[in-house]
């Protein structure tokens, strides 16, 4: 158990993100890539993800405004979005992406719309939580959250 209060807080935040299903094993993989030469790697990747995926969210939003829905296009956008979400370990977001793609495949426009609203909620919630987490991480200083097996 960490003595340093900031690090303890960080540990608790981290555990909660996993316990509540926001993050999966892939996030740990990213943590293992972090080292002294690149101490903010995870934050950099997550920042990149949010910046990059914003474009896809917008594309999907616009596509959902055009009726009839082009399910093929929607599925293609979501495929990309799901890939990136998976790469950072965004578990809930990834699950919603999978569901969205299933609705696309079955041509269920209502389902797509509802699912997309939920996806955006999860996406936003995760961002807030991760922003808070990284803020504490930066204050706490370098800490080994995961050990890369030698």
């Amino acid at each position, binding site marked *: 158990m960490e003595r340093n209060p900031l690090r303890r807080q960080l540990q608790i935040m981290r555990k909660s993100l996993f316990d509540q299903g926001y993050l999966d094993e*892939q996030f740990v*993989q*990213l943590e*293992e*890539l972090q*080292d002294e030469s*690149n101490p903010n*790697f995870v934050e*950099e*990747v997550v920042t*990149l*993800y949010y910046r*990059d995926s914003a474009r896809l969210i917008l594309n999907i939003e616009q596509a959902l405004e055009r009726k009839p829905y082009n399910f093929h296009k929607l599925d293609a956008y979501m*495929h*990309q979005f*799901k*890939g*990136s979400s*998976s*790469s*950072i370990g965004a578990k809930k977001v990834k699950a919603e992406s999978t569901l969205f793609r299933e609705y696309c495949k079955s041509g269920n426009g209502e389902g797509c719309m509802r699912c997309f609203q939920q996806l955006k909620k999860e996406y936003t919630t995760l961002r807030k939580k991760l922003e808070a987490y990284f803020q504490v991480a930066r204050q706490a200083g370098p800490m080994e959250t995961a050990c*890369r*097996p*030698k």
Partner: protein
Amino acid sequence: MEAAAADILPSGSSQELHVLAVDDSYVDRKVIEKLLKISSCKVTAVESGARALQFLGLDGEKGSLGFDGLKVNLIMTDYSMPGMTGYELLKKIKRSSAFREIPVVIMSSENILTRIDSCLEEGAEEFLVKPVKLSDVRRLMKDCVMRGETEGNNAGRRVDKRKFEDDNHTSSLSSSSSSTPSPPSSPSTTAPFGGDVATSELVSSLPPHSSKRAKFHDGD
């Protein structure tokens, strides 16, 4: 056993493996780049098959981008990319006399058997399911370098497998010879104490109680 590419290369060789990574996702490029750098590789990450071909000099344009022509030891490409897919890139590479020897690994978020089959048939070294892990990359480095050290692609693999089997065989032989020889134990020779033959022999060699008692009583 964990190993980085630099650890496995024969001593005296200080060359790092140069990997060309192809992925249209910015996030994935960043991650794969890091995975490879941590495994002591030189990395060139490009966003499309077209750029990959340009880099290799296969795009038909002469002296177009002035790349320093670093030898590429491995190509890792995403499957689903707009324009040229990873599969199409794979085909182009395997059909080029200059580059067909370079191992190509396909990465895909979708675990589709027909897709995997067609990639392997077209000459892909491996098909990795995304997201790619550090252990995947380390395994690749090992396989890739082992291939480079032997003559043929398949020959290298087979030799390694046989060697491993031989090692296993000899080690199992030596272990059985070094253990204490177990006495023949069969149900018909069960001793009173249920122990092995040696013990029961010891028991039966002791003088029976009855003869001793008789002697004692006589003394009274």
